[in-house]
């Protein structure tokens, strides 16, 4: 679908308990933010499969933001520890997937941290705008990249 306005595509995966609440808090406090980010609500950052992020990038997302509860604060005791391990590893895999790691950020925002959420959104959006739109992958490469592991230097 063509963009009616010049927003870039930033997909945010947020846990229901802390960061989604933090985004709500920012909204209730009317803390202005850029409009590029769209939020996918998940129960826990531990629910986020790195595959979701890869698929978002291959689908044309210009940036992906993941946010969950601060370590120790997880509603499910330890979901965010699982998330942290997976995402830290995933961050290192991004270059191999042909994706600039600068387009990905994972962070922790609690339900009370509306201002922090505003800053995270503003900073990350500014960073994605500096990087510009995600280079489009050719259709054939897209299918290949998503279905088979891509060696560094290949693909895009």
């Amino acid at each position, binding site marked *: 679908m063509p963009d009616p306005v010049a927003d870039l595509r930033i997909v945010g995966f947020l846990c229901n308990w802390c960061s989604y609440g933090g985004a709500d808090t920012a909204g209730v406090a009317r*803390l202005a933010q850029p409009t590029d980010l769209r939020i996918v609500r998940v129960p826990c950052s531990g629910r986020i499969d790195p595959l*979701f992020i890869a698929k978002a990038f291959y689908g044309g997302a210009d940036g992906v933001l993941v946010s969950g509860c601060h370590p120790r604060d997880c509603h*499910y005791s330890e979901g965010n520890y699982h998330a942290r391990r997976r995402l830290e590893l995933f961050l290192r895999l991004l270059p191999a997937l042909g994706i600039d790691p600068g387009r990905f950020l994972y962070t922790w925002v609690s339900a009370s941290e509306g201002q922090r959420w505003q800053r995270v959104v503003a900073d990350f959006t500014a960073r994605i705008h500096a990087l510009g739109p995600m280079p489009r992958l050719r259709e054939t490469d897209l299918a290949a990249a998503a279905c088979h592991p891509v060696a560094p230097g290949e693909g895009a």
Partner: protein
Amino acid sequence: MRLGVFVCHCGSNIAATVDCAAVAEAARAMPDVAFAADSIYTCSEPGQEAIVAAVAEHGLDGVVVASCSPRMHERTFRRTVARAGLNPYMFEMANIREHVSWVGRDKERNTAKATDLVRMAVEKLRRNRPLTPREFPATRRVLVIGGGVAGIQAALDCADGGLEVVLVERTASIGGKMAQLDKTFPTVDCSSCVLGPRMVDVAQHPDITLYAYSEVAAVSGWVGNFEVSIRRKATYVDWNKCTGCGECIKKCPAKDAPDPFNAGLAPARAINIPFPQAIPKKAVINAAHCKQLTTGKCGVCAKVCPSGAIDYAMTDTTVTEKVGAVIVATGYELFDPTVYGQYGGGRYPDVITSMQYERMLSASGPTGGHVVRPSDGREPQSVVFIQCVGSRDRHIGRPYCSGFCCMYTAKQAILTRDHVPGAQTYVFYMDIRSPGKGYDEFIRRAMEEYGVRYVRGRVSRIFPKGDRLVVRGADTLMAAQVQVEADLVVLAVGAEHAPGAQELAATLRVSIDEHGFFLEGHPKLKPVETNTAGVYLAGACQGPKDIPASVSQASAAAAKVLGLFARGTLASDPQVALVDPRRCVGCLKCLKTCPFGAIREEQGRDGAVRALVVETVCQGCGVCCVTCPQGAVQLQHFTDDQILAEVEALCRTPLPTCG
């Protein structure tokens, strides 16, 4: 599938910066959308009725409401669609208020963003499945861990509410810290006169089973159906026979056992009843100090016991109880002031802790209520209190305020004047924190009526001078160094987590905070719940609390438990993980990662091992789904397909598919 979309104006909250009519118009073109409308207040009665009417009129299978946060009104609208005859889970919400209209200023961009969010919700809803909560029976019994004032209150409230209560207390008597206190602030009324009758109520209540001198060893099961194994420690006295007459204590030759009730101010006998008002009032032998048990050469208590209750061969036993809910009321521990070497606690006999002083003030204490110097038994004429010993000091890992020390120090300073007329009292403080009802007035009385001299500043050092002590510190209001000669120094020690809190938290699968206190479900809206369903918190185990706060929280926890059981059966949240047995290869990685122990190993009819989710234990975090290499575990309502459908709705290009 026929879906309906309702775009809410929320008055001008959304409509001012989002073109709601345009969003509804765009929604009409989305797949499966059979009806779309915008309304001024969707959550109002006419707004909800419009949804019910549209479901009937257009034969809708699911509803999307684009309005405020689902954290606000998801439940409201689920009830609405249920009223319209749909499954409540055939509903999705797009948050176009908190996440769009309130944070974006550009109407065109906001409208585009709102349309995207509606498209996501529609794509997710197209993949929703009706879900049904499962009803399961609950054991209408509650376990209360800890018999301090919070545990006592929680147990009595639950029992009076018609529940059977199992109360487990680690020490030989209930009563906790409050039983050790002489008076309570700000009323200066007698602690045991308030607590004593409540303790008796516990003992006499037909629905309370009290296990004193016992510990919770293991907990299995889930909300409504916990199984608890309780270790009853060997007392070496048959409590069925013991009458609490105390003959054995009088004759026991081992006189050097510690006496935790008197805070180490005086030794106790090896066989002892903790205090005169103890519940149960039964003797316990301290095995480490009993001559019969250590050397085999005594047996005096067995000879003098008129009821033949002594049993040197007794061992620990374990009992199992089934309960439906757990209230944790394990309280706190007082800070050990020997950490501050400069104060000389533990080195100088006339530097004592606030609890030792409290026992000294008590008529039932080791000095019979006389305030004396431990070194020479002389009445002190100058008493210095030092506050924040183990509070608000990040250098020793206690950055938090213990909350009650300011108040008990004022109380003890006031009582000092009553016990030793003419004595001069000083309080070194950092800030006075007295926010409770009647608290600030109480501090003022200490200063104005009782002439307690408050010095704002930290004490740097205490050292002996002759048979007195010199307290050297700063007076930050005078900007000067000060020095006070004292006969007795009382360290107002702060609170820290109870010993064993971490182990108990692991047993109960609940979290503790960075300071070792139990973590509440939500600091504002779930202060007595934990993240584990059916486990509640009462009193200072959740953080330092005074008596009124502990009692309030205990009653709140009891109310939560009574509410939990009010319907007879419990309903499980159906948004839980589900294993596809055809795809599960039995690697059991999910079992290892599940934070709640909600996944069980199960052997199928074909003999193969598979994972099985216990619906009522699963909390729906989805950690297992990502762990499963086969994609065999899916979190219902948040499946891979559903989340990826939302992602795809946001993407420029369709996601590539494999094969």
